[in-house]
């Protein structure tokens, strides 16, 4: 069973979002997603300053056998990207909710947060995918 922290929000395409105390949002991919992809060999993060709309392809995670898009859970401006991943993509595998974060957004539409899944709903998505 994969780890699904209760304090995060999720997309059914397996991204997580964490609202920080300053109102910015940190985004990554879930433990389930990293497990399904296998060992990552490359991560392409978005450029700082880029503005993303909700659902836009924002980053690419590449394993030996597949390259998958990571979608932005919210609209907003990219204010930071995890540059450590260019040399150590395996951080996404070893610590998907911590050192393996992908990028941070300054959200432009707080209402969109309400549309994301909570941990319980995401747990169901993962369980359904297994069947």
């Amino acid at each position: 069973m994969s780890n699904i922290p209760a304090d995060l929000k999720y997309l059914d395409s397996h991204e997580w979002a964490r609202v920080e105390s300053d109102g910015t949002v940190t985004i990554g991919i879930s433990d389930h997603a990293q497990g399904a992809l296998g060992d990552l060999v490359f991560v392409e993060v978005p450029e700082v300053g880029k503005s993303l709309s909700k659902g836009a392809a924002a980053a690419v995670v590449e394993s030996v056998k597949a390259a998958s898009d990571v979608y932005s859970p919210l609209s907003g401006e990219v204010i930071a990207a995890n540059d450590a991943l260019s040399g150590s993509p395996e951080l996404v595998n070893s610590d998907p909710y911590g050192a393996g974060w992908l990028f941070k957004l300054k959200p432009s539409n707080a209402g969109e947060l309400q549309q994301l899944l909570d941990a319980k709903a995401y747990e169901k998505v993962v369980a359904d995918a297994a069947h």
Partner: protein
Amino acid sequence: MPFIPHTETEISEMLAAIGAPSIDALFDEIPAALRIKSLAAIPDALSEMEVGRLMQQRASQDGRPLNFLGAGAYEHHIPAAVWAIVTRGEFYSAYTPYQAEASQGTLQLLYEYQTMMSSLTGMEVSNASLYDGASALAEACLMSVRAHRRSKSARIVVPSTLNPTYLSVSRAVTEGQNLSFTVLPYEPGKGTLQFSRLEALKGEDITAVVIQQPNFFGLMEDVDAITDWAHANNALVIAVVNPLSLALFKPPGEWGTKGVDIVVGDGQPLGVPLSSGGPYFGFMTTRMEHVRQMPGRIIGRTVDLDGKQGFTLTLQAREQHIRRSKATSNICTNQGLLVTAATIHMSLLGAAGLEAVAATSQRQTSKLVERLARIPGVKVVFDGYRFHEAVLQLPTKVSEVLEALAKRNIVGGLDLSKLYPELGNALLVCATEMRTDADLDSYASALADVLERKP
């Protein structure tokens, strides 16, 4: 006999499973007006014997002319061993096998090919090849747009001394992708890029600058200055090179202070016979920092569980069968058979052999130019240092001269008068190591005869 071995029973079972009444029904979404009813223009099938005879007749129409035409594809000696080895059953396939790792020999060959191309071009990585030189340039332009994320213009600067077919193919392939091409003129009388026109673009957002070396006129561009200018102006550099010329000249990886970013070209001079425009193969090499944006695949060397050497597909995650519409290219293959020939050709010739071929071609071209320029009315258009091609000016219409030469069994070169009208009656000629001194004399005397009979 159809090649798809499904029986009627299997077909009806499959149709039943998907709920379609017939195979035709699967094509319902294509409007009737767009569907071809019959193939009336296609003749009936011929037997193998009839096809064999037809092909021999067609082949004999070509004759065996004495060839002085280059312009992107070159007649070189290919040791008999090359194609004897290539056509062995173990190698004889155009494709990387789908169960790639089950074909270690093919993968090792591709790995050796990549190593040779990286070393020849002075770059860190090579892919397993592309279709041809022109489409490789188109791919390089698209790749530069992906790789250069700070540049927003998707603007590619090319010199007018780039092979004109390379430019038209690049435009055609990239159409609809919002790339723009800015074509810069050559210096009149010199035949190389007018550097001041490049400098005039200073400060503008340019994604990449293309340099062909030697250029379409066979001349040497100031590649160091152009490369450094491009990098100083935040543009990537794409080199288009004849791989054979790299046996003599500085590899693109060493141009300027940093070297270029992407190298492409046509691999035909490396063991691939001339054949009505193809199939040839394109090559592409680049820096490691751009490897994720390079189209195609890379073969890597690794070890198995027991520590034994093995070869594997290491970079295919961004190809079409995995990345679909977001793949690095919609061309998802390589030219395996021709790459096999090139790898064997390079192995047989070795570095010294390649250098001898290139140097002899250069020497024979220089002798040819000297001999032809002695003919009254024939002038050398550009004086600069050249590889194995040169532009000559004739006193009369080039197409008529070429026709008259063809009657004497000589292919005299490429008529430039439509591609570069400002050059007047201009002819691009080439001599490779295949042209002996006697061949050069034959051409010179034939051309003198042809020109004398003209008013």
